[in-house]
């Protein structure tokens, strides 16, 4: 092994390192898969990250990669890289539970979700499905049926949700790449709490086909990773039009990984004020990033509070419409926290939702004007660091409010209009838990988010280490 390179079998190995080692024949994909499966078996009882482990499939896929390497064929850019997906992605022969009890009565999926197929085709090795908040209506990472996913950096704290298992699996070193979904913040909140990189692409960029929906007009899928290169690589490989997703926009692939190191001094970066200023703890984390980027501009995102409110209403109503039959037939089988919000959502006056949709378009116009003056906007990903599991309320701007509905106050106004965001992890000196910062760009400019994230990582301002307790 080359001195200084991470052991590709270790918890800290990046996807890039693993793929290089597998392609060069330095390590077998099967050994990498076995090491990942062993880590999952050892640590998942503490982390609650996985709900399904697809060991046989993983070993078969790894053997296929090894066969290609042995025969001089290209095994793909993610050769032998273990990955896992939130359990709302279809996995062939696995029941897509979407965090629920009710959906467990469905038959197993007959095919993989489009994004799973794309990573599979790139040589990555699926090792299982990940815990999530019920039906993705969650910011905590708790689950009434499967138990909570736990923050690898402090096991009695939340991972954030609803892609909680994705956060735990990556920060806990079980896999280098995980996929999640983000309707109102469900990638960015766990990335913030677990101290990893997350990308919520532009609405309509990546196919959502064969994943269980929540709010079709707001749902996005995207990756998590511990390095910006891995994040960009996974994202690049998942691009491509898929007519099976009616909301996907037809665009050519716009790769980012080869542009990560493009210099960023030409980029104009602003810090969101007003609604996004947050409490002292959030401000402190944003300040570190802003100083590193020499971002002295201040940007006021207009009507952000109303935008968040509109996203809240659309989510309640659209979510209720999706689940109406299940709410009628099996209300007792829901997580009560999910059910009672959905039942209320079923009763909202239609005019509230229509006004919210009208605001969405008007707000989009206003915010897009901001990108004439700046290329990226910085804002906190969460108003606080990870609360304790089970904590019901917290102070938000001096007011005690429910945790579950309010952890997304800074993410909701952004995903509401589908802007791409990289969540980057910031650790203040001496602190045990991180807090993420959103790097927000204009629609279709994921490259800007990722270049800035990469610059912050290279400068040592942002990092995503495997939690100390899970390094072995």
């Amino acid at each position: 092994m080359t001195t200084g390179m991470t052991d590709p079998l270790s918890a800290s190995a990046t996807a890039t390192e693993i793929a290089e080692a597998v392609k060069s024949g330095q390590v077998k994909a099967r050994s990498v898969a076995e090491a990942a499966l062993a880590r999952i078996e050892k640590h998942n009882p503490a982390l609650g990250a996985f709900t399904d482990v697809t060991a046989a499939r993983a070993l078969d896929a790894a053997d296929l990669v090894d066969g290609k390497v042995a025969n001089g064929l290209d095994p793909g850019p993610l050769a032998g890289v273990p990955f896992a997906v939130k359990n709302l992605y279809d996995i062939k022969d696995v029941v897509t539970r979407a965090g629920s009890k009710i959906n467990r009565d469905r038959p197993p999926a007959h095919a993989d979700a489009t994004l799973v197929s794309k990573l599979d085709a790139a040589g990555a090795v699926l090792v299982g499905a990940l815990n999530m908040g019920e039906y993705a209506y969650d910011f905590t990472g708790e689950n009434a049926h499967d138990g909570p996913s736990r923050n690898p950096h402090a096991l009695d704290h939340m991972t954030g949700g609803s892609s909680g298992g994705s956060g735990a699996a990556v920060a806990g070193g079980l896999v280098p790449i995980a996929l999640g979904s983000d309707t109102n913040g469900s990638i960015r909140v766990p990335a913030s709490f677990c101290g990893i990189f997350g990308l919520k692409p532009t609405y309509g960029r990546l196919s959502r086909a064969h994943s269980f929906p929540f709010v079709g007009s707001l749902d996005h899928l995207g990756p998590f990773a511990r390095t910006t290169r891995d994040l960009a690589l996974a994202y690049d490989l998942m691009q491509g039009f898929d007519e099976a997703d009616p909301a996907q926009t037809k665009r050519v692939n716009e790769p980012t990984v080869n542009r990560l190191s493009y210099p960023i001094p030409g980029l104009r970066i602003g810090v969101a004020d007003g609604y996004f200023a947050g409490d002292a703890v959030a401000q402190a984390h944003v300040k570190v990033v802003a100083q590193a980027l020499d971002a002295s501009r201040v940007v006021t995102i207009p009507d952000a509070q109303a935008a968040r409110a509109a996203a809240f209403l659309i989510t309640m109503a659209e979510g209720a419409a999706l689940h109406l039959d299940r709410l009628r037939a099996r209300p007792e089988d829901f997580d009560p926290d999910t059910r009672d919000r959905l039942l209320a959502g079923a009763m909202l006056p239609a005019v509230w939702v229509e006004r919210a949709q009208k605001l969405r378009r008007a707000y989009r116009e206003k915010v897009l004007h901001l990108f004439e003056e700046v290329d990226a906007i910085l804002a906190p990903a969460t108003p606080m660091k990870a609360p304790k599991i089970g904590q019901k309320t917290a102070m938000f701007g001096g007011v005690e409010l429910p945790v579950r509905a309010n952890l997304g106050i800074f993410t909701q106004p952004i995903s509401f209009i589908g802007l791409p965001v990289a969540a980057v992890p910031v650790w203040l000196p001496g602190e045990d838990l991180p807090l993420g910062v959103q790097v927000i760009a204009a629609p279709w400019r994921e490259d800007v988010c990722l270049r800035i994230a990469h610059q912050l990582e290279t400068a040592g301002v942002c990092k995503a280490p495997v939690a100390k307790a899970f390094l072995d």
Partner: protein
Amino acid sequence: MAYKPFDADALIDAAAPLLQLRIEPEFRAAIKANLKTASKMAALVEQVKLEDEAEAAPVFRA
């Protein structure tokens, strides 16, 4: 005539039969709390004045 204050119980009692939703007693307090939150959210949305010509975000294309 003054508006009456919002009565979440009245909305639940009227809407649940229309929607064929069974509201068990233990569900009610949380549904009421969520409806009250939603009414505050709706008030925030209504504070932003929109032109008569404002179109909703999803536009159907034939």
